[in-house]
């Protein structure tokens, strides 16, 4: 057995490995229909026949040189519940995503719909445009006439949640921060667009928690992971973003540092989705894949190695629903979020068994899919209502916003509760509660 490397030391002994086309896995399908049972979308709408009918079946009639046999594949939300349930290893969600990209390329999604998809998928651009004029943008994004026009002209759901832009970007907070910890142990934080433009409080909690545990937090320039574009079939634009991130991040990995991220979909994109869907292979990409970690997972690895400081944790005497996002489950690492929350004294967590909240990134922002997103999340929203805690816990930002909008309950990332237990100042509802 090999000696084990500490979690914070990068594995630099990796090289490019080729990706087999995900479509090859469709031959593993034995037509057992388990995926159809698992799919939260087909359970609530007739517009999506179910995973088996798309990837392994219609997939046989999809060819880059042919017109797509049908367009229902655009109703796949990409939640990956099918992949998780499949007993024979078919990469159903990825095959669907690639089928959608072919549709986009062939002009199957065009005009205002494609423009709309591009607008909501360029989260970084939206942030760059909106955040500097936050008060105005926040007002404009939520007035009824503007949303009515956005719905009728572009197909952006009038009820879908647009969280307020922050008045101070996360990166600006960092710049103004006094006495950041300088230490030998360093870790890179991939904050994603949401922490930068909407919820810097998550990033602040991360910095505090990591520093408390003796890590210097490195936050290099970075850009959108590209997942929203991948989910909308805009593969060439997504690839530009992905390559740009590799270029910006890989020097840190080569110095021996690992990358952690709080947005579970961003980290999944860097670890697996982008290289697999884009069939992208390089030594640098392999380094990023091997050394990017979910934040909770990183914390729990510290815990299991006896390296997590659990001294003087304060009680957080709340009963809260925790929803593990679908794309977090797709990391296939168990439930590190649950395990992390179990470390917090007096916190009582009610775990959601819902497969998906319905939002699935940009899916629920689309007028034609908004109701599906609400119907998929129904059991979760009922649970949140029944438990009636002051906040709800979830790692993924668009899930958080969707749950908050649907249940009128503020939502937090687990790291915010851990930061509260450490006694660090927290923001939002947790601050109101006195933490």
């Amino acid at each position, binding site marked *: 057995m090999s000696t084990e490397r500490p979690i914070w030391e990068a594995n630099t002994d990796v090289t490019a490995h080729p990706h087999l086309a995900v479509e090859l896995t469709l031959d593993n399908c034995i037509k057992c*229909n388990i995926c*159809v*049972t698992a799919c939260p979308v087909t359970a609530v709408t007739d517009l999506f026949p179910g995973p088996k009918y798309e990837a392994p079946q219609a997939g046989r009639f999809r060819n880059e040189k042919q017109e797509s046999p049908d367009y229902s594949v655009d109703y796949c939300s990409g939640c990956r519940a099918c992949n998780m349930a499949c007993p024979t290893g078919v990469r159903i969600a990825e095959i669907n995503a690639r089928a959608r990209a072919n549709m986009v390329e062939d002009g199957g999604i065009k005009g205002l719909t494609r423009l709309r998809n591009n607008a909501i998928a360029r989260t970084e651009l939206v942030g760059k445009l909106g955040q500097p004029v936050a008060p105005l943008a926040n007002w404009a994004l939520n007035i009824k006439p503007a949303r009515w026009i956005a719905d009728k002209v572009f197909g952006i759901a009038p009820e879908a949640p647009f969280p307020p832009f922050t008045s101070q970007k996360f990166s600006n907070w960092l710049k103004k921060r006094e006495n950041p910890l300088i230490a030998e142990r360093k870790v890179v934080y991939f904050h994603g667009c949401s922490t930068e433009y909407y919820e810097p409080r998550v990033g602040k909690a991360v910095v505090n928690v990591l520093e408390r545990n003796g890590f210097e937090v490195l936050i290099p320039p970075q850009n959108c992971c590209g997942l929203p574009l991948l989910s909308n079939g805009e593969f060439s634009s997504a690839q530009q973003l992905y390559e740009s991130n590799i270029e910006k991040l890989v020097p840190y990995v080569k110095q021996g540092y690992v990358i952690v991220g709080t947005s579970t979909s961003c980290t999944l994109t860097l670890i697996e989705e982008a290289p697999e869907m884009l069939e992208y292979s390089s030594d640098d990409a392999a380094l990023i894949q091997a050394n990017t970690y979910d934040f909770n997972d990183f914390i729990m690895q510290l815990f299991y190695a006896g390296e997590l400081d659990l001294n003087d944790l304060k009680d957080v005497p709340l009963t809260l629903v925790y929803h593990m996002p679908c794309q977090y489950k797709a990391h296939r690492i168990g439930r590190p979020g649950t395990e992390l929350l179990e470390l917090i004294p007096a916190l009582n967590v009610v775990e959601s068994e819902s497969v998906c909240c319905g939002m699935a990134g940009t899916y629920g922002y689309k007028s034609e899919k908004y109701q599906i997103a609400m119907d998929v999340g129904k059991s979760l929203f009922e649970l949140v209502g029944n438990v009636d805690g002051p906040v709800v816990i979830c790692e993924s930002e668009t899930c958080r916003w969707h749950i908050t909008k649907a249940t009128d309950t503020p939502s937090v990332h687990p790291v915010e509760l851990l930061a509260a237990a450490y006694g660090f100042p927290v923001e939002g509802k947790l601050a109101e509660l006195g933490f």
Partner: protein
Amino acid sequence: MNDVLIMGAGLAGLTAAWQAALRGKKVQIAAKGWGTTHWHAGCVDVLGYHPVDASTAVDNPRTALTQLIADQPQHPYALAGLDQIEEALTALQTLCAEAGYPLHGSLDKNWQLPTAVGSMRPTCLAPSTMIAGDLTQKESPMLLIGFEDYRDFYPSLAADNLRQLGIDATGAKIRLATIEDANFMTPIKLAQLMDSDPNLRLQLARAIQAKLGDAKRVGLPAILGVRHSIAIHKELEERLGVPVFEIPSLPPSVPGIRLHHILFTAIQQAGGRVYDGMEGIGSHKEGNVITAVLTEAAGRTRTQRAHTYVLATGGILGGGIVTKPDSTAREVVFDLPLEVPGKQHEWFRREFLNKDGHPIYDVGVQVNEAFQPVQGENGTAVALYQNLYAIGNTLAHSEAIRQRAYEGVALVTGYKVGKEC
């Protein structure tokens, strides 16, 4: 660290996890995907044919099991013993009864239930929703109901074949707007709608009523709800005034999913965890100890540790054993020794449905009486690894599909190991 790490979430893995968690063990299941509970009929077949080429089905499983145990001392049932078999069945019956979904039957008599193609299926335990279909009971005529625009059940085909067996059966299709208006209708979706839509249940009853005639019992595909099937079944019987029975159809099996829900809930309530999408791809060993299992995760391999490991990944069908063109077979997680029947061309008989089966499907893991993998055939042999057990249809010497013992072998071996590991 977990006390017990179980690889596989079929009936064997779920049963072992449930039993071990009840004992206060910290239990985790890691499974590639959902298991065979979603494929099988949602009954517990213990022994349907012994010997496998017998012309008649087993009527009294207890007698047949006693004979099987004498005839095949290496069979998982022989290693477990009759008492364990009975105890495992009782435990599952108690759990299901407490969940409001009773399983009826005992080792004293098999049910003979109709299949979706109108053949006879011997099974030991069956839910309340199915037992009125027992073909040894004489209530006739029997009316089989299917739906227009529904692809998973053809009542006339089933009725024709039942008449060949001397059963007075007729088939009829009814129209349900819910099905006809839908682009796609799968058994699971129809069952979910039955759960949630009282109006659909009323429509169903009215449409069957119109075809009822002098029928003394009514069969229909197993779609009477996922969560509320007992109440839905009772309501339908009351409306029709005759016994009603479900017939399991193609996967995904709604009755199998009901059993899965019950076991899954029992595991969670006892503090166990079930992770799907987590495929076991290898292990670390030191001498005669398993020190870790390797699972596939996004972008990397994960190392998972526990005190005790249980292999429940199934055989060739379940993916626990893979064969290769070089005439070898491999057990995928622990690379346990397997005996392959000759070269690849000797693995299969000429006929797909040959009564003697295909030799390759006899490949399995050899275990001792404690269900610990061993080298070679010897019930008392020393375990290869002191902290490893193997259960369910990954085991050698069970011809579970042809014997109609599939769920029984999974349940009994999962129960015994879960209780003792």
